[in-house]
C-alpha cells in the first residue's frame, strides 16, 4: 500500500510552493471576478517566503509544513493566513514524530486539516469556498483508504474529487467571504480559494505519488 519517509517528505511542500508561484496571476484573476483580486498575491507571498526560509536547508516534511504554517499565521493575514495556516498546522501536528507517512496517517492529516478550517471559517460545502474542493477531496481519499486501496490510488481519487469540487463552485452562489455580498451575481465563475486548494492538493498528490515510487 506504500508509504514515504517524513525525512524526504519536504518535497511535498516544495511542490506546493512551485504550483502556487506558477499560478499566482491565474488565482488573482479568478479572485478579481467576484472578490478583490489578491488571492494569487497573498498565496504567492506566503510560499515565496517559505521558499526563502527553507532555502539551503534539508528539513523533513513536518518541519517544512510548520514553516509554511508559521508564515501563514504570522505574516500573511487575509483569509488565507488563518485558513491555510490552520490547514498546514494540523498536517504538521499530526505528522510530528512520525518517521513514515502512510495512507492512514495522511488520511488523519487531511481530516484534521479539514475540521480546523471548518471550525475557524464556519463555512460549509456549497458556500463557494475552498471547502468545496477540500471536503470532497478528503472524503474521496478516506473512502479509498478505508476500502484498503493503495495510497497512490487514494491520491488519484482525491485529485479527481478536488477537481470536480473546484468546478462545482462555478454554479454556486457565494455564502461566505468577500464574494458573498454579491448574492446571485457571484454565480458563473470559479471560487479562487477552491482553485488554489485544488492546485495545492493535486501538487501534494503528485509529489507523494513520486515519493511512493
Amino acid at each position, binding site marked *: 500500500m506504500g508509504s514515504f519517509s517524513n525525512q524526504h517528505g519536504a518535497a511535498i511542500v516544495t511542490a506546493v510552493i512551485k504550483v502556487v508561484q506558477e499560478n499566482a496571476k491565474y488565482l488573482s484573476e479568478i479572485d478579481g471576478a467576484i472578490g478583490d483580486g489578491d488571492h494569487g498575491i497573498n498565496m504567492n507571498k506566503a510560499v515565496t517566503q517559505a521558499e526563502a526560509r527553507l532555502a539551503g536547508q534539508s528539513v523533513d516534511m513536518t518541519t517544512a509544513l510548520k514553516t509554511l504554517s508559521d508564515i501563514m499565521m504570522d505574516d500573511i*493575514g487575509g483569509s488565507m493566513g488563518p485558513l491555510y495556516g490552520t490547514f498546514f498546522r494540523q498536517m504538521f501536528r499530526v505528522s510530528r514524530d512520525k518517521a513514515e507517512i502512510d495512507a492512514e496517517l495522511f488520511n488523519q492529516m487531511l481530516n484534521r486539516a479539514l475540521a480546523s478550517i471548518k471550525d*475557524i471559517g464556519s463555512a460549509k460545502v456549497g458556500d463557494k469556498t475552498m471547502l468545496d474542493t477540500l471536503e470532497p477531496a478528503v472524503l474521496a481519499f478516506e473512502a479509498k483508504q478505508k476500502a484498503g486501496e493503495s495510497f497512490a490510488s487514494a491520491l488519484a481519487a482525491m485529485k479527481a474529487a478536488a477537481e470536480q469540487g473546484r468546478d462545482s463552485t462555478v454554479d454556486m452562489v457565494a455564502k461566505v467571504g468577500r464574494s458573498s455580498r454579491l448574492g446571485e451575481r457571484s454565480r458563473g465563475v470559479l471560487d479562487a480559494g477552491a482553485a488554489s486548494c485544488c492546485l495545492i492538493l493535486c501538487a501534494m498528490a503528485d509529489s507523494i505519488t513520486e515519493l511512493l515510487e
Partner: protein
Amino acid sequence: MQRIINDPNLVVEDMLSGFIKCHRDLVSPTQNPRVLKYRQAPIAGKVGIVTGGGSGHKPAFIGYIGKNMVDAVAAGEIFSSPSAKAFYDAFKAADAGNGVACLYGNYAGDNMNVKMAMELAEDDGIAVKTVVANDDVPSAPKSEPEKRRGVAGEIFMWKAGGARAALGGTLDEVIASAQKAIDNTRSIGIGLTPCTIPANGHPNFTIEPGTMEVGIGHHGEPGIEVTDIQTADEMAARMVEAILPDLPFAAGDDVAVLVSGLGATPVMEQYILYNKVEELLAEQNISVYRSYVGNYFTSLEMMGVTLTVMKLDAELKELMDMEADSIGLKQFKE
C-alpha cells in the same frame, strides 16, 4: 502604472517606513514591523484601542493612531487582513492592564485573524473585546447585518471608542460606546473608476467611463447598481435616500456627516456633493451637528465617494466633540 513605488510587493513596508519617519512625534514602531502604536501607548489606567485592516486606505488605519483615538494598529497587505500575529501584537502594544477594545470592520479575513489573535491574547491573560463595524448599507439587506461591510463609519466608531477610553471608561463601557456609535451609523459608496493593486499591475474590476457603480465596496466589491453617471446632486439624493430609511433617521435628528473621497476624486468634488447632502438633510429636518469632508478612508486611486451619517444623542455628541490628535483626524476642543 503611473505610481510612485519601488518593489510593488513591498509597498506596505516602504510606506510604513516613511510613515514612521514622518510622524515620530505621534507614532512609534513596535517589534512587529506590521504593528504601529501611539507613542504614549500603553497609557496607564486606560483601555487600549486597537484596530487593523488591509492597507491601501490611507489615512486609515494607521492615520487614526493618536491622542484620544487609536492606540495600536495592525497593518495588512494591500486590501488584505493583517495576520493573527499582527493583531495579537497590537493588543500587546495597546494593553496597559485594563483590557483592549478591538474595533474593526466586518470582513471575513479580519474576523478570522482577530478570532485567532484573541485566542493567543487569552493565553496571555489580556482581556480583548470587539466591535465589528457594519455600516455599509448596500452590502447586505437590513435583515442580515452580520453580512454588512464596515466602511468609513469605522472612523466614528474609533472616535467614540477612543474618546470613551480617554474619559476613563472601563472595557465594557468603551465597547458599549463604540457599538452605539456604529449601530447609529450608516454609509454608502459610489465608485467612478477602478483601482489597481500595485503588485497586480492592472485593475481587477472595471467601471465603464460614463457609468457609476452605486454601493461599491472599499476594495472594489461590486455594488448594487451600475447606472449612467449622474450629477453630483443626483448622486447625493441617491445616497441620502439609501441611508436615511435604513436606520431609520427621522425629523429632528442631529447627525454627524462624513463625506470621504475614495482616493483620486478631488476634494473639490466632495464639497460639491456635501453641499447637496446637507440641503437634503435639512429638507428632512435633520440637522448636521458635525461635518467632515475629505479623503478620510480611501481605496488606493479609486475615484468615487462615500457618505456616512451617524445619529447623535447627548453621549455621542460629547464623544465626537472631544479633542483628537491623529494624522487623519485632528480636532481642537471648542
